[in-house]
């Protein structure tokens, strides 16, 4: 089994330490907007809230970003992590992978006009080291698939309900 980030959103306290650790490890600055991981906090709605949802690359075994890339700038490393990495030199910034990622984990840099994503800090992720609550653990997990069965996570249920209710509301208004 590959060693990857095990994410337990229900343990997340929403301190956003991972965002700082990530931007520092990868960009040498403290800037959450340059982070490859996001602890998204939903503050409103029905209790129990706030609901925290950790969003980052799951290094999917069937990575959609990898398959859609027209210039083959995205590839899978042949090390035990099997992580998916972006070759920034060959990236043309078309954004297809950003659209293809079901998790919103492929990010676009407005400065360099290229994409960037979590590459597990080369095999030693900084976010997992800093996480105080155990929501992020770097350990061996079953490979993740970007298909329906693996989507049965609380976060996506909440998200889809939220968007559904939004649509329903719009219809009612019409």
């Amino acid at each position, binding site marked *: 089994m590959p060693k990857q980030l095990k994410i337990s959103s229900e343990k997340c306290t929403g301190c956003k330490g991972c965002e700082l650790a990530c931007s520092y490890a990868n960009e040498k600055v403290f*800037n959450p907007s340059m982070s490859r991981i996001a602890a998204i906090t*939903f503050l409103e709605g029905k*209790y129990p809230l706030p609901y925290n949802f950790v969003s980052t690359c799951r290094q999917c075994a069937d990575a959609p970003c990898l398959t859609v890339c027209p210039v083959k700038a995205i590839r899978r490393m042949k090390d035990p992590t099997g992580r998916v990495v972006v070759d920034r030199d060959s990236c043309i910034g078309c954004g297809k992978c950003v659209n293809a990622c079901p998790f919103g984990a492929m990010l676009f840099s407005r400065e360099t006009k290229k994409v960037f994503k979590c590459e597990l800090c080369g095999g030693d992720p900084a976010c997992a080291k800093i996480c105080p609550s155990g929501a992020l653990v770097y350990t061996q997990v079953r490979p993740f698939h970007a298909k329906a069965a693996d989507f049965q996570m609380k976060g996506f249920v909440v998200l889809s309900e939220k968007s559904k209710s939004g649509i329903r509301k719009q219809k009612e208004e019409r």
Partner: protein
Amino acid sequence: MKGQFPKGGYMGKALRVDLSSGKISEEKIDPQLLYEYIGGSGLGTRLLYDETIPGLDPYDARNCIVIAVGPLTGTLVPGSGIYSITGRNTLTGLLASAQSNGFFGARLKHAGYDVLIVCGKAEKLVYLHIVDGKATLEDASRLAGKGTFDTDSWLRRKYGEDGFDHHVSVASIGPAGENMVRFACLANDRGHIAATGGLGALMGSKKLKAIVVQGTLPIPIDPADEERFLENTVRWREEAHNTGMGKTTGKFGTIGSFLNFHSKGWVPVKNLTTNIFPGTEKFHVDYIRKKAHRSVPRSCYNCTFVHCHSVQVTRGPYKGAVGEEVEYEILAGFGPNWGIYDPGTTTMLNTLNDDLGMDAKELTFLVSMMMEGYEKGFVTRKDLDGIDLQWGNTEAAVEMMKRISRREGIGAILAEGVKRASDRLGGGFPDIAVYVKKGNAPHIHDPRSRWGTIFNQVVSNAGSQEAQDLTARGSADLEIDKPTADPDEYLGAVNAKSAWWRQFQECLIYCYYQTATGKTMIETLNTLTGSDYDMEQALKIGRRVVNLMRMFNIREGMTKGHDSFSPRLGTPPVDGPAMGKTIAPTFERVLQSYYKTSGWDQEGRPTRELLEELGLSFAVPALKK
């Protein structure tokens, strides 16, 4: 200061907003000021000192509010989302310095500024929006009268929910602030409060409803010391868990201390008329956490603890109410102090109070004073507009809170704060009012036998606590191993020294619960900013800030008479574990010992030589007043 400073940690810019003309300008902060005051309360006080015209009424449009963060804000240092707000205390006219946790401070920095100075007065209600170094004033007329939660929701929905690219924080005032209730507060990030000194009322007088900050600007680090800075922050995070506070507060929150404090007679019960109340088992942290509420963790920015929770009441008359898990002081203030012995009710009251935007300290001693007055017949039900304000009557308390926030009927008198209201109502009220410093309520304890708290509050220049409360513990950083067990000279001397250290910590501006050893904190600061502070200099900075605060207040006409407490605080508890203890007989001796250690004269005024030594020569003219 050696060579170039600062090399990291600061954005280096201040934003000045003149609400009268609508002009917004940016200015560079003098590096010398940053070196001498670091940031937070210290920098805020210094800038405020320069901006303030002495002797003005707190609501005069020429007064300023200074919001400041520090070099550590927004970095990996634990608890780095705090900001400090300084301004003229609307209750006393002296200095008020308040801090609030959450995320606001870090996001202000990511928006590009270390300091925000707000002056003038807008014609109609506005809010300030700051994003990536651009600031605009927007019309807030549709937010008028809205509570702090609704204001937060509305503005965050407008500027983007949380996510990869949207990091939005809102600090706003509630209806109490808009109606200039003298103890209105500023609330940020849904339920984090900068309470002390009525700075919300000051914002209300300027017609500034809210401040929205969001940004994507990076915080620079001294490149020479990157690795060591990271090592230091990691050590800080570890040490924060191992302090006395980390072991208790980190696990159980501040409510974990409730029964311990009760066993010492430090919990305020019924406006300090007694120290005993029934049903203490309901205030055990296990009961509150496991039986009375259900909870999910909710953390401040970069907190290493999991002690804050968002809760729902599962038991009692207010089953279903949601809110933040209360802190010890709120639990005592909205609980036993009002004769309410159900923790779920305090959660409901806390949420309401956060929404209305009032300082819980002033509010609890105000309502408890009215309850005692009502019981003793100083006021009738007719005087209270028909509200049956008996001990433990939650509905009446809720109604009273709403009326105070709207300044309706009796609320208009009470909205002036404990001291002013008791003077205005007259009769027996001045004798039962609880306040210090001729105007503001103390923190929510029964401080009469808690020497560190009462003395600290009485001599504080910041409107709230100024020094560390060392009644029950020592301080390793200050090499004080003996707690202040008695009200004697030792208490005064210890209070003076711990004030310097505490104020240095307030200049660093990080969460007080996440304290590491002094050595680690100073090293972290040095490696981040490329400075060369040591313990001696740190204490000097703290001492500089304490003296500057003192000079601010002296310039505003503060005398030795202000270092005093109300008659009720001078009486000994009549029952309970602290029965008969009081600081009153020895107070003058303690005070003189405090003045002496501080290097002040017998009237509590700094000497000219001391001010010059601390680099405060500019404040010397104020001594002549």
